[in-house]
């Protein structure tokens, strides 16, 4: 039944539209970075990660929109009276957006690859870096879902999109100190090169974004205090592994 509801949410929810929008924006951003296309996987992955300044806010906004749907549509009382644990409903809604962005991610990766950006085998650092991008997108979906549960106004998603775009545009290339603080975002900033794509750093980021995704899911399920722990643990892992 859950799988059927996931299919229904994928079909009738915002996932298809999100996938199209993210594909268009991400594709434009990734493919308009020819300087970084120098024939290696690392550069391809870097180009893809650089597009996150645009893609990530869109996924976050989609999550907010989806998360606020029940209250916005007047279904909050019916949902509040439901036997189904909120965590399962949140999992289905987050998974539908997660699957949509996963599909987009694969398409973007294929597009970058087909553009002649890559040659040779996919190395561990490039694979880890690609995985970071994917998990950051899933985290954005779940965090958006959590925010949408809290702020269901129709203005919440566009406002968040505007604010996050403004922040990532202004601070996207900012590298204060040794630049470690910017690892909380999947885009690595202008001064970052392929040499920075170490497996160790990517693992730190992976744990950070995974923690964020779990926190978003817990928060969207109504477990707000418990929801802080995975993000905090992910942040600690990121700090430890990026030193």
């Amino acid at each position: 039944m859950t799988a059927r509801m996931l299919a229904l949410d994928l079909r009738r929810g915002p996932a298809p539209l999100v996938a199209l929008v993210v594909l268009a924006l991400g594709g434009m951003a990734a493919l308009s970075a020819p300087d970084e296309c120098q024939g290696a996987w690392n550069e391809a992955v870097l180009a893809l990660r650089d597009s996150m300044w645009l893609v990530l806010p869109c996924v976050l906004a989609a999550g907010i929109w989806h998360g606020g749907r029940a209250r916005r549509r007047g279904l909050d009382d019916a949902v509040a009276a439901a036997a189904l644990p909120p965590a399962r409903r949140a999992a289905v809604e987050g998974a539908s957006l997660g699957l949509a962005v996963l599909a987009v991610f694969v398409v973007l990766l294929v597009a970058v690859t087909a553009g002649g950006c890559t040659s040779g085998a996919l190395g561990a650092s490039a694979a880890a870096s690609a995985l970071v991008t994917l998990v950051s997108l899933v985290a954005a979906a779940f965090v958006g879902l959590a925010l949408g549960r809290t702020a269901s106004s129709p203005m919440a998603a566009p406002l968040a999109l505007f604010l996050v775009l403004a922040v990532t545009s202004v601070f996207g290339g900012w590298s204060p100190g040794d630049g470690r603080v910017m690892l909380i975002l999947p885009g690595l900033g202008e001064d970052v090169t392929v040499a920075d794509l170490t497996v160790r750093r990517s693992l730190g980021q992976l744990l950070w974004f995974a923690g964020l995704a779990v926190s978003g899911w817990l928060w969207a399920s109504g477990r707000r205090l418990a929801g802080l722990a995975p993000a905090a643990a992910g942040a600690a892992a990121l700090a430890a592994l990026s030193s």
Partner: protein
Amino acid sequence: MTVLSDPLAPTSAFAIEADGLSVRAGRHVAVERLGLALDTGVHGLLGPNGAGKTTLIKALATVVRPHAGTLRLSGVDADRGDLRALRREIGYLPQRFGFYPRYTAREFVEYLAWLKEMPRDAVPAAVDRALDRVGLADRADSRMKTLSGGMVRRVGIAQAIVNDPRILLLDEPTAGLDPEQRVSFRELLREVGGDTCVVVSTHLVEDVAAACEDAVLLDRGQLVFRGSIDELEAAADDVGDATASTFERGYSALLRDHRERVGA
């Protein structure tokens, strides 16, 4: 069978049993020290705007918790019991019932059946049956956004009955229904009420008179009257609008008497 609250029977098998129940709506106490016991049958919940009907229905649906007193639903304490199991036994049509416009009627009822944790294998047949009972079998595959207000309300009734609940709570179910649909709905109520405790909150005294076995009248959160439809009719006096039905005049007389008694 329906009786007033029975303090000597705390573990009795009433579907709904409230004792000294108070429920808040925000900071305001909307239901105050209510004693009530309801079992199988169709019960009308009447009262003017602000009487506390919707807040009471929300408490019965476990959407809001009691502020004071006890509320037992199917023998389970609604404040401390296993709400998950209890909620599977409840059907609820909220006063404000929204929908997802891109879903078809069938998909939407199926979605709500999933929220009620119905067994997967039972869902398709139950959804079809529920839509058929509200006369929407031919529109099952229509998108929700293409349905009229009355049809949406009927989808709301279908989702409330899809799990064959032990307790069915309907808040203003006839809002938006045309006269023919209201007549069909009353028939459905009588049919469902044969083995279910149905509580129908409404402004329409005529609906209660036509479909309910008894009536509960609230005013400003307090119980004004609990009795049979005949007793409601018998309370009518000659004061007020002579064109009103005897049920409506009974309703008005009971409210007037209560307000005089409490000095409101």
